[in-house]
């Protein structure tokens, strides 16, 4: 479903600030794979997400989605196939527009936008139906402005908007990191449910090692722009945080330099 071949990306090339963000990364996801990515700050996780979604174009290498080479496809074209939830709960929704208008925009993701009404009666019924799956009562607030919702509610809505058109790839970029623990748990559970329901091919970046172990069928660990560890389906079930930290020390010869990852 998703294929990354020899992706290489350098920031500020030719200046003293030159930094290799992604160092010849290969990754392949089968349909229905749910891969969690962990790694310390600056490991290249977010850059990888941006390369897949088309915000950044790799210097070398190719991105294939569903068999098509999309390496040079522009972001807005590529996002027909990619659902994305950002870390910032404010980033995934338009605050001055209503819940139903936001959903209508997400609904048009894989279609051509026309001069037809965005929110029709039929669509409204459908939106109500999908909102009910969140169990947040948002189905009764269809015409409320999204700016009035709490961070958790907005992130739940973003998650729904990213997924209910069943994209080929779902990218989750630390989408629970900015929420308080109980809200983060809610979003985590919703993520699990939605990915299961639509059988979405998913790539999730997280700082939370426990979350990375609990969710998904595969796990990769990144450091300094490289994938240093890949855990497949069979071995993932035996994973523990201690195991992961030990593994990191064995490969890199140093302690994992990320207090946040250890504490959480």
């Amino acid at each position, binding site marked *: 479903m998703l294929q990354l071949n020899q992706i290489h990306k350098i920031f500020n090339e030719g200046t003293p600030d030159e930094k290799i963000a992604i160092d010849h990364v290969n990754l392949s996801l089968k349909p229905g794979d749910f891969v969690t990515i962990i790694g310390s700050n600056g490991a290249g996780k977010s850059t990888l997400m941006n390369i897949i979604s088309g915000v950044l174009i790799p210097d070398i290498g190719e991105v294939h989605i569903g068999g098509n080479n999309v390496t040079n496809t522009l972001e807005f*074209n590529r996002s027909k196939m990619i659902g994305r939830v950002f870390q910032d709960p*404010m980033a995934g929704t338009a605050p001055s527009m209503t819940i139903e208008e936001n959903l209508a925009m997400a609904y*048009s993701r894989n279609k051509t936008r026309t001069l037809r009404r965005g929110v029709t009666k039929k669509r409204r019924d459908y939106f109500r139906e999908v909102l009910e799956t969140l169990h947040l009562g948002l189905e009764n607030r269809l015409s409320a402005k999204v700016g009035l919702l709490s961070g958790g509610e907005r992130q739940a809505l973003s998650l729904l908007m990213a997924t209910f058109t069943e994209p080929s790839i779902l990218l989750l970029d630390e989408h629970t990191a900015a929420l308080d623990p109980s809200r983060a748990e809610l979003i985590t559970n919703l993520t699990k449910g939605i990915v299961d329901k639509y059988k979405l091919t998913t790539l999730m970046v997280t700082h939370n090692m426990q979350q990375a172990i609990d969710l998904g069928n595969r796990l990769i660990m990144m450091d300094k722009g490289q994938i240093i560890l890949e855990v497949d389906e069979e071995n993932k079930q035996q994973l523990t945080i201690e195991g992961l930290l030990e593994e990191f020390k064995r490969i890199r010869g140093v302690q994992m330099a990320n207090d946040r990852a250890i504490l959480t």
Partner: protein
Amino acid sequence: MAKRLNERMISMFTAIFGSFEAGIIYAIMALGVYLSFRILDFPDLTVDGSFVTGAAISAVMISAGVNPFLATIVALFAGFAAGCLTGLLHTFGKINNLLSGILMMIALYSINLRIMGRSNISLLNTDSAFTKISGFFERTGMDSFFNSLLSMVGLGDSLPETWGILIFMIVVTFLIKFLTDLFLQTEIGLAIRATGDNRRMIRSLSANTNLLVILGLGLSNALVAFSGSLIAQQAGSADVGMGIGMIIIGLASVIIGEALFGTKTIARTTLAVIGGSIIYRLVVSMALRIDFLEPGDMKLITAIIVIVALTTPKMIERSKEKKRKARRKAEKLTIIQASAPAKGDNHAAIKSDS
């Protein structure tokens, strides 16, 4: 004494009538500014140029004998093109939004002079859209009907020449308002709104934000040029300097309207913008009745209106907040004072027990 009062009332009525007539035409321009400034979050100074472009094109065409309605439509398309160019400068040229508008405005000044061939074209003795319409109204007898109504309330000495322009423009402006409301609810319209609200998000929902910005600015300036064309026909002349400060007038209308009539829904806001435009004209015409102010002071008055409209809501908000905090503080103090002696008693009681 009574006669002088009557005279004053009559001239007041003429001023109010004029304000409504001009306000409802300028409202179309204000709706254009609303599209760029509020919906796209793009302070678009092209407006100062495209307003004149609309006026220039229709003035040239009308004096060449072209049908005035056709000339007005051509002006609309010219404005659309100007707006699209600003959009191109900003999106593909990656020029800052204010600067791309200013560049376009300056470029249009020369283009407008080229279109007109001279700095002023008079339309006084030619057939404009409005002379056609007032002629039509005269024939139907509507003018005399409205005027007889006015005479009945004692304003018989200040009868407007025609009601046609006002009524026709109310219909046209509201038609444009409803079309704008409908457009902003369509799939493309929603995407344009989201481009102004959260560009990153709508791009991640597969919308080409560059095209949407270009389209939005095109539509905005189409309305502005349309309004410019109608103003030229109403005033009977097109002048190359008539667009100076137009963006500020548009902003004033949007801000005044929003402050007075609210922004709960899109339909409400567009209505507010029309209202704001009329009120702006009323305020200006009232201000110009003050003796020491001259017509040349109008731009200064406009600037002051916008400054007041922008700063006072914030100041009112701040003083309300201050009062609220002071009240809360006072409430807390009384609670503490009320509970303080009680606490003291408890303390004493415990002491005596031990």
